[in-house]
């Protein structure tokens, strides 16, 4: 029996687990997938929003501002990449200029620091690559970017270092209330817990409905992206570039990522199918057309990948946070700025559980600083690296040539909490396969390392769990020895 069961290992679930791991509690996190960070937390813009965008008085505004304040320290404690690169909202017309003034006012009201309105000269001084069309901008120096994979992985990892259990491939399909506990079912499997935290993203409405809360619904809104070869980043931008919102929508953004690439997107398309992660020809065309207004000479032939994220849009227009049943907290409709807000939502989760009657007693030995994370090999000096290689020669064996990832780092990604179990999991943690060749050279070696580390046959290694197998068994020639 767990004290608390968290459903969903996205950024919200991961950081809630971490917050709860500071207390003397028996906590588990369930996810239907084979890994942490496979939902919206995997496919988003990765922006730590400064907070000028959200309507004052909303939950979005409240948690955005608080989350943005907390994020830098959380990333530092967890060893997650965070870069305060600053954002620019670009304006093209007089109308845009007026809108930017409104945004400025709103930002000030929300408590965003150091905002500035710039004329063309001011913009060009900061970002010389913007197009000729740009006439003005709102500058938010506190805007930042973060590695969403890193945040989920390290957040849940830190929670696990402190005793939280992570249960993969557990898709909750039914919940029963017993006198003193909730029983969560995935087919025949069960998990019992006194308290439940519903962080199931797109399916948070479905999970809430399992305990009788049908006060809201969530629908998917597709956002497509393209990622460019990082060789072109210097000629594009290190900022996050938005365009001025119009009645037609917010438009896409052109942004640097913590991985060093430039990313274009997201589009916005209302869907009904929560499993539709397709990219579309229309989406690609729309990104191309829109992004050409931001910066000059975008090399579309240097696109290395494209992908889709689904926003979990709640029926109220705001985050939906309440007790669906006694001792059952729901985080519903956590769309943007959900990533930014996550640390603040986790803090609030603890408060809400206390209100619901959960007894909280701090652990004496809990530290916010994660000490059991994988070493940051690529950030070390040559001398430090050589020390490590001497101890563990696998760090001298380069597996991914595009991103420069060694066997040692891949093994660490598998062995460090919560541990990669498939090729995509290794990729999210180490960036191997995320570079310009997209795994062409290294994927077969990564499969081999996963097979060895997990003690499973080569052909049972998957791309992303489930039926996503990579090989169908031996060739006629049978065993080879390379």
């Amino acid at each position: 029996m767990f004290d608390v069961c968290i459903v969903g290992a996205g950024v919200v679930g991961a950081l809630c687990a971490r917050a709860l791991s500071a207390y003397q509690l028996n906590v588990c996190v369930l996810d239907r997938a084979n890994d942490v960070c496979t939902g919206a937390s995997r496919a988003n813009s990765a922006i730590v929003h400064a907070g000028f965008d959200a309507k004052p008085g909303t939950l979005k505004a409240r948690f955005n501002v608080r989350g943005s304040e907390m994020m830098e320290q959380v990333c530092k404690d967890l060893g997650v990449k965070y870069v305060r690169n600053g954002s620019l909202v670009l304006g093209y017309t007089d109308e845009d200029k007026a809108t930017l003034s409104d945004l400025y006012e709103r930002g000030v009201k929300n408590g965003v620091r150091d905002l500035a309105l710039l004329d063309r000269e001011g913009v060009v001084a900061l970002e010389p690559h913007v197009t000729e069309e740009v006439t003005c901008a709102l500058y938010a120096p506190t805007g930042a970017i973060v590695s969403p994979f890193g945040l989920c992985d390290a957040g849940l990892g830190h929670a696990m270092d402190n005793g939280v259990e992570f249960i993969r491939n557990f898709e909750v399909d039914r919940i029963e209330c017993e006198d003193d506990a909730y029983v969560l079912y995935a087919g025949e499997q069960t998990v019992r817990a006194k308290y439940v935290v519903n962080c199931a993203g797109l399916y948070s409405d479905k999970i809430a409905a399992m305990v009788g809360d049908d006060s809201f619904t969530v629908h998917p809104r597709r956002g497509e992206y393209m990622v460019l070869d990082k060789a072109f980043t210097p000629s594009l931008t290190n900022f996050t570039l938005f365009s001025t919102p119009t009645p037609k929508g917010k438009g896409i953004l052109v942004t640097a990522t913590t991985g060093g690439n430039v990313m274009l997107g997201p589009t916005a398309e209302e869907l009904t199918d929560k499993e539709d992660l397709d990219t579309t020809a229309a989406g690609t065309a729309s990104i191309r057309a829109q992004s050409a207004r931001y910066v000059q000479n975008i090399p579309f032939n240097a696109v290395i990948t494209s992908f889709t994220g689904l926003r979990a849009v709640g029926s109220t227009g705001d985050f939906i946070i309440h007790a669906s049943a006694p001792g059952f907290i729901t985080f519903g409709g956590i769309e943007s700025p959900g990533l930014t807000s996550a640390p603040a939502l986790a803090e609030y989760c603890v408060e809400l559980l206390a209100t619901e009657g959960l007894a909280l007693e701090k652990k004496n030995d809990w530290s916010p600083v994660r000490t059991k994370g994988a070493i940051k090999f690529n950030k070390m000096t040559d001398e430090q690296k050589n020390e490590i290689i001497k101890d563990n020669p696998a760090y001298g064996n380069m597996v991914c040539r595009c991103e420069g990832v060694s066997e040692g780092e891949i093994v660490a990604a598998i062995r460090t909490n919560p541990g990669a179990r498939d090729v995509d999991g290794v990729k999210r943690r180490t960036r191997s396969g995320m570079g310009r060749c997209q795994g062409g050279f290294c994927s077969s070696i990564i499969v081999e390392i996963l097979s060895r580390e997990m003690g499973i046959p080569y052909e049972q290694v998957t791309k992303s769990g489930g039926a996503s197998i990579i090989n169908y068994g031996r060739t006629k020639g049978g065993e080879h020895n390379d």
Partner: protein
Amino acid sequence: MTKVSLVIVGGGPAGMSAAVAAYKAGVTDLLILEREAHLGGILRQCIHNGFGLHKFGEELTGPEYAARYAEQVKELGIPYKVGTMVTGITEDKVITAVNPTDGIMHIQAEAIILAMGCRERPKGALNIAGARPSGIYTAGTAQKYVNIKGYMPGKEVVILGSGDIGLIMARRMTLEGAKVKAVCELMPYSGGLARNIEQCLNDFGIPLMLSHTVVQIHGKDRVTGVTIAKVDERRNPIKETEQYIACDTLLLSCGLLPENELTKGAGITMDRITGGAVTDQSRQTSIPGVFACGNVLHVHDLVDYVSEEAEIAGCAAADYLANKQSERVDITVQPVGGVRYTVPQKITSAQDTTVYFRVADVFRDKRVVVKCGDRVISNKKKIKLAPGEMETVKLTAQVLAELAEGTITIGLEE
């Protein structure tokens, strides 16, 4: 810092040939650095035959061809380090490399030969709509699974792109019991060698669908099918021609890209068309003493030419180290009318020179005309020219010496 006269980056056919040539020309202080656990480069996974007809006058498999050079390297006692990845090269020829036993090394070289080969164009660059399930591989990755690892990456296969590796893999997968349902090619012609289309597709009844592309990938965990469509003259898919093909695997054979991150990092001048460095007839790049050869310089279709080119670079590196000077000329080679690129792009010394080039489209009954201004240097009739086949023209030392400076154009005329 360790000092080495000549460092060769990459131990594929290009790197090995260059090393052997340099050694025979008198360079004994040299070192090959190779990332993989063995010498041989990409040929180790090309187990089909058809290699070495030009060079050795017999048909060898890829591994056999590579082994001939690897044996020479070992017999001559040319030092090499495998499992060693070069991570950086500076303008002053300092090489950074890493391996499990030496850790991170810095080597000061007097001369460098770049022979890092090429990589395949990945899926992302193609922007195919649809899901991102397992079962999408570049043809070379599939080749590695089948030929090196001994595993089958698919059972029902569609191949996009008719580059040589795709064609070879169509046959290979078929022989291994897979069903190859179609090879789709965006262009109205194949980028592969004519003999590969005959021996790998036609002999097995695999349809080659020209002017077709994959417009959508289906499947959640594993590929379940693809939608293909015919394209119009502007290469846009025609909606009415869409058809669904059930398959579990999509192989991509959509071109090779020279692997030039190290080259760019050193600040060497690049050719935007070839994706490789700009070089002179000796394969010397814009940094004196740094040479490039093989697929890192431009994509070759036959390894025999790779070896030839590498010998040129190896000998030139030896000359450079011995400070040998020859008569200087200053000639630019410029592709015109129907010719996409030439290698070399510059000629700096009057010696017999073979210029390699590729054409931009399929042409019939054309003349390959080499000119300097209005003066015609050579003029040869060709019945057929295709982008998939590399062509050559020869320039004699005498012609180059006479010319001394100026621009030579190579183009197609009626």
